[in-house]
Each structure stands twice: as structure tokens, then as C-alpha cells.
């Protein structure tokens, strides 16, 4: 799940300063689950912005809306023509949602209401922790299903380092467990300690963001119009 945090009210307030009627658009996906961009948060942000504007002696009209997802085109249809009513939009979807909105409605002014942080898991109620870095070449098969790329402070592939103490990481001994300790314990419990003896090569970061903007294509679906053309070609044999 994508985890995002609310931006300071002051910053969002700065974005919308010139406008008198805005839309606050929530997303029903990941950011709803991590309690930062759902319907309720739309309400709170709307109230906060309205109050701040009132203190400054101006009124602010807000259209509140939450769509199931902001990262897929079809859901934007649910907005109908509400977007035409407003001068700007504050999207509290993740960074992908904000950009999808801009791409779908190139004439609209869109501002982000969240700081998108990481791919994570809700470890306990109200606590989300980074579990995946989206590096593009998964090593979980060698580490018992626990990721050193995302969850080691140094991202080292052959750990632990000297900063591992009593199972915790020296970067934040209260909150960050040493992932290599976790990996060791896990591999021991599944009787695969042989895996830890394998030295992993230097990581090829070209599959991560270092290799440029990433894209994924599904050969069955990719560029459907083109495929339909291809389908019309006579079958061989």
C-alpha cells in the first residue's frame, strides 16, 4: 500500500490563496486506508481551510468529493462536471493520483495535499512501516520474505553490519529492527540458513529509478488498438 502524510495546513493554504472556490478531492484507495486521503480527511481538510480563510476575512467555497481511485481513468468520470465549477483542486491522493488528475484534465489547476512517503504495511493500528522500495528486482526469495533493500537503513544485501545491536538498528534503536537479524531468525526457523551463506552480488539498480522512468507492458493488453489491427491479420498455417 502507498503511504502518504498530510502536508502542513499552512502549505496547502498557500497553494489555494488566489482562489475562492476549490475542490478537495479524496481517493478511496491506499491513502484512505492509511487515514490521510479518504472521505473523512477530505472533510477535515475542508473545514480547516475554510476556518483559516474565515480568519483572514475571506470566504472559501469548497466542493468535497472522494472517488474510488485517482490512478485509473474511469473513476474520474464519477466527478461529472463538478470540476468545471471550481477554480482549483487540492488532491489528497498520492503523487500518482495528483498527476493522473492533471493528465486527465489538462486545463485544471491541481495542487497536492499529501506528501507521498513509501510502500508500506500497517504494522499495528495507526502505524505504517516501509516494507518495499520498488527496486524492480526482488530478492525476497533469498531472504526468507523479508526485504533488506527497503528495511535495512543501509540497504545492504549481505548483512548485518556492525550497527546491529540486540536485534535493533543503530539508526533508531527504538523503532527500527535490524532486518538482517529478522532475516537470520526467519531463515533459521524455516531451516534455510544455507541461503544466508550465499553472497549476493552488487545490486543492479538499473531496474530501480536509476535506470530512468519505468514502465510495464502487458503483451496481451498493451496498445489495444494496435493489437486489434494485428488480430485482423490472417492466421498463419
Amino acid at each position: 500500500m502507498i503511504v502518504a502524510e498530510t502536508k502542513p495546513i499552512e502549505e496547502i493554504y498557500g497553494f489555494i490563496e488566489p482562489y475562492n472556490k476549490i475542490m478537495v478531492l479524496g481517493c478511496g484507495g491506499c491513502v484512505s486506508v492509511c487515514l490521510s486521503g479518504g472521505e473523512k480527511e477530505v472533510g477535515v481538510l475542508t473545514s480547516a481551510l475554510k476556518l483559516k480563510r474565515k480568519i483572514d476575512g475571506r470566504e472559501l467555497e469548497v466542493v468535497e468529493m472522494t472517488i474510488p481511485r485517482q490512478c485509473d481513468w474511469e473513476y474520474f468520470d464519477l466527478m461529472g462536471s463538478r470540476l468545471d465549477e471550481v477554480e482549483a483542486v487540492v488532491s489528497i491522493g498520492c503523487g500518482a493520483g495528483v498527476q493522473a488528475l492533471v493528465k486527465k484534465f489538462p486545463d485544471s489547476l491541481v495542487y497536492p495535499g499529501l506528501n507521498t512517503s513509501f510502500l508500506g504495511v500497517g504494522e499495528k493500528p495507526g502505524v505504517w512501516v516501509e516494507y518495499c522500495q520498488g527496486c524492480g528486482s526482488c530478492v525476497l526469495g533469498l531472504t526468507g520474505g523479508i526485504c533488506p533493500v527497503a528495511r535495512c537503513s543501509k540497504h545492504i544485501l549481505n548483512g548485518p553490519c556492525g550497527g546491529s545491536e540486540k536485534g535493533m538498528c543503530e539508526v533508531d534503536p527504538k523503532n527500527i529492527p535490524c532486518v538482517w537479524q529478522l532475516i537470520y531468525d526467519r531463515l533459521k526457523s524455516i531451516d534455510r540458513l544455507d541461503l544466508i551463506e550465499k553472497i549476493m552480488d552488487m545490486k543492479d539498480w538499473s531496474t530501480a529509478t536509476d535506470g530512468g522512468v519505468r514502465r510495464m507492458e502487458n503483451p496481451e493488453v498493451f496498445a489495444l488498438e494496435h493489437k486489434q489491427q494485428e488480430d485482423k491479420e490472417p492466421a498463419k498455417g
Partner: protein
Amino acid sequence: MAETEEKVEEKQPKQPVDPNFVPKIVAFCCNFCAYAAGDLAGSTRTEYPSNIKVIRLPCSGRVDTRLLLRAFEEGADGVYVAGCEEGSCHFAEGNYWAKRRVKNAKKLLDEIGIGGERLEMFNFSASMFDKFVANAKIMDERIRKLGPSPVNVAAAKSK
């Protein structure tokens, strides 16, 4: 409580507050304790500030940040939530949820510029009508000291 009162002393407006200022205060009261205590205060003819507008809730856990902010939007100068004593919520832990939400909303109010000290949470049982009255008075006194909410000040100016 003392800490908040100190904060209130600090935050008092520089200009003297109009002595005729009667604050609008909204009290979100749990049906099983504070609301019943308010009832009892009425039955025993104990007077409490008449500018307190009581809103009855099924549990103090019903409040959320939006509800609290909405009260300020509608012109409240102060807001408080009154729930059961800790450990004796009718729904087990609604008052703890309310406590956390109030704490969070206080921070947000500071950020907005209204001031977190205009919001408070109290806990007392259905029989403690004296506490209902005392807390109403505490809040009334505090908001009188602080003066009208910045939202209402701005609204008055623009008229």
C-alpha cells in the same frame, strides 16, 4: 488543567475583552454521563452558564475532528467534549477515542490559528452534576478571558 490555564494567561488578547462578551460554547455530551449529569443539575436547580449549548451524543467517541471543527465554523468561541470517567465508558473505550481526537484537534486548531486551548475534554459520571457545572464554568471563564474566536472577530470586522 493548570498547564492549559497558564497557556490561556499567555494567549490573552492584548486589547481588553469587551465585558459584555458572552461566548458561544458548544458542549458535546455523552448520553450516559455528562448529559445525564446536566439533567441532574437541572433537577437540583443548580445554575450553570446559560451560554453553554449542549449537544447530546450516544457516546463521547462519536466526536471526530470534523465535528469539532464544524462547531468553530458555525461560530462557536469554545468547544468541549464531556465523556464518562476513564475506564467506565458505556461502550468500553469511546472516551479514549474522544480523548485522542480532542488532543489531535487541539494541534490542528493551533495550526489553523484558532488556538487549541479553545477546545477541551472533561470526564465525569452521571451523578457528578457538580462537576458538570464546575467544568461549564471553567470553560466559560476561559473563553471569556480569551475573547471571541478569531473566526468571529474576522466576521464582525467584515460586516
